[in-house]
């Protein structure tokens, strides 16, 4: 049971073989047994979880089951929830209790899901390893000396070790897909504008998007179906977005005739040889399943990280100006005057990576530099988008590695921020272009999971889900579980 998919648990619940309370208790026991090692959860209220499960069983008995009835789902500490603290793994929000639920939290509750606590993350989602969390580093279940990726590392670690069957993450430059890849699970970033950002603590507003982290492709579709849709209170959700039949997209499991673009810029030097071998093997398998591989070029790919590290910090510096210690958040003791209160509260509250990004963004937006940095980066962003638009005239979907390397050791990249930034090299362009992307397990390198990334045109998550579920049906990489957390599969 612990390593069952969400849809398998749903079947057992629907057949009356188990109850939401039993399921919740099973995962609570696993969290109690393993979280101290992993530090995947930063907040958990077991009684509250069981209360939700009891209410779900009662709802099922009285009014029937909703789409996610009784299914446990953990959420990243970036989602505002009225129950329990929402701290974004930052000291500036220590003990903050949100006065409202994020839109996607409301949607999960309405679908009958049981919310199991808050997962660890890089502070304000700024990081690729979950090492910048104010609440301690999170570990990778495949090797406890290694990072689980980031910034949604807690969600990834929790799903990979089966402390929960599924979780929500957010993805600004790869923060769902990269940790999914590094922990051997499936993660999807929907099209920008598909899912409401209201109540998700803002990092870079033109890039942030929430999405599922799961054991299977179908599970990712189930959760996305529940959380997507226009929100009148988030004007960046697109009201006339094409509607999809999310579950049906996973049923075909056939990629015959599908044209898969393979961009040469994603197979470059610096990439781990075993990762490359795994991804190339996966592509061969797709060909054997009837897909056609097409060599393509996305010529501006090498500029994506540079554009991102202007755009994301600039937006972050504006978004994080709200932490002024007036209306909410940490305030320093005995401020001398207003300026002292602002500067000292922010110094005490923000960790070093967050400060680094705020300062980078403040500099890029400061008088005299706007045209050279922010405006220029937004123009390069247009060129990166055009690369994808042109590629999708020739192919249905694009396949790449999700990360050029496997999970690295804790502390290995913390000394040089730029080295850390470059670990997102395969995921960032997707955010800049606002496209949907999905990572799924496709093998192992150095006994650590490797991820295959699918990229589709805007609003065509059905293409992602179709390709990924066909690959999943033909392989068993998604069934591998870390030995130290094993048990019946």
């Amino acid at each position: 049971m612990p390593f069952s998919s969400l849809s398998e648990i749903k079947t057992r619940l629907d057949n009356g073989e188990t109850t939401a309370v039993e399921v919740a208790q099973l995962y609570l026991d696993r969290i109690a047994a393993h979280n101290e090692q992993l530090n995947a959860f930063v907040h958990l209220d077991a009684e509250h979880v069981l209360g939700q499960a009891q209410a779900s069983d009662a709802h099922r008995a009285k009014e029937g089951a909703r789409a996610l009835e009784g299914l446990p789902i953990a959420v990243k500490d970036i989602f505002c929830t009225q129950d329990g603290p929402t701290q974004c793994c930052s000291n500036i929000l220590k003990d903050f209790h949100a006065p409202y639920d994020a839109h996607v939290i409301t949607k999960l509750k309405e679908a009958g899901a049981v919310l199991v606590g808050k997962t660890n993350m890089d502070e304000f989602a700024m990081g690729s390893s979950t090492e910048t969390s104010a609440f301690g580093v999170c570990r990778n279940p495949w090797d406890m000396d290694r990072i689980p990726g980031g910034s949604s590392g807690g969600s990834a670690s929790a799903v990979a070790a089966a402390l929960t069957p599924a979780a929500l993450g957010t993805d600004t430059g790869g923060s769902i897909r990269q940790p999914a890849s590094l922990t051997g699970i499936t993660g999807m970033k929907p099209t920008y504008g598909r899912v409401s950002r209201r109540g998700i603590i803002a990092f870079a507003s033109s890039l942030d998007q929430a999405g599922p982290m799961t054991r299977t492709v179908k599970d990712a579709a189930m959760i996305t179906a529940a959380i997507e849709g226009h929100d009148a209170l988030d004007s960046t959700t697109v009201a006339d977005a094409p509607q999809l039949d999310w579950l049906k997209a996973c049923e075909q499991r056939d990629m015959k005739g599908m044209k898969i673009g393979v961009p040469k810029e994603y197979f470059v030097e610096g990439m781990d040889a075993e990762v490359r071998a795994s991804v190339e093997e996966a592509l061969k398998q797709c060909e054997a399943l009837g897909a056609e591989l097409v060599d393509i070029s996305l010529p501006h790919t090498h500029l994506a990280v540079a554009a991102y590290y202007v755009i994301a910090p600039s937006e972050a510096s504006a978004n994080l100006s709200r932490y002024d210690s007036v209306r909410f958040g940490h305030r320093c003791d005995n401020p001398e005057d207003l300026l002292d209160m602002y500067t000292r509260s922010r110094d005490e509250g923000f960790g070093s990576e967050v400060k680094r990004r705020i300062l980078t963004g403040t500099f890029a937006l400061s008088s005299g530099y706007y045209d050279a940095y922010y405006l220029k980066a937004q123009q390069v962003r247009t060129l990166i988008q055009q690369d994808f638009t042109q590629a999708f005239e020739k192919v249905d979907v694009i396949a790449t590695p999700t990360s050029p390397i496997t999970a690295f050791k804790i502390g290995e990249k913390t000394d040089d921020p730029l080295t850390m930034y470059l670990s997102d090299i395969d995921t960032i362009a997707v955010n800049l272009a606002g496209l949907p992307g999905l990572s799924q397990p496709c093998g192992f390198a150095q006994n650590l999971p490797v991820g295959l990334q699918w990229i589709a045109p805007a609003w065509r998550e059905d293409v992602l889900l179709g390709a990924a579920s066909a690959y999943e049906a033909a392989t068993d990489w998604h069934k591998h579980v870390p030995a130290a957390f094993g048990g019946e599969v």
Partner: protein
Amino acid sequence: MDIDVQKVAMLARIRLTDEEATELSPQLSSILAYVDQLAAVDTEGVTPTAHPHDASMPLRANVVTNGNRRDALQAVAPKLESGLYVVPKVIE
């Protein structure tokens, strides 16, 4: 590029100790040196991205949707008095 870190930190309203400034200065310089590769790209006539999908900004009816929630929203404030936010004295 040499950056006056303390000046940028003041713009961002973050106090930095001298040690922090000394550590951050070369890090910011190396980040900016990396992003400087953008300068070499020919972007003549390229429209900067405003929204990833070129969507228009929708309007909604200007109506109250969630009522008066002042108490709940102020419950998280560091310092309150009679429903007002308290800050250090601004004007002598």
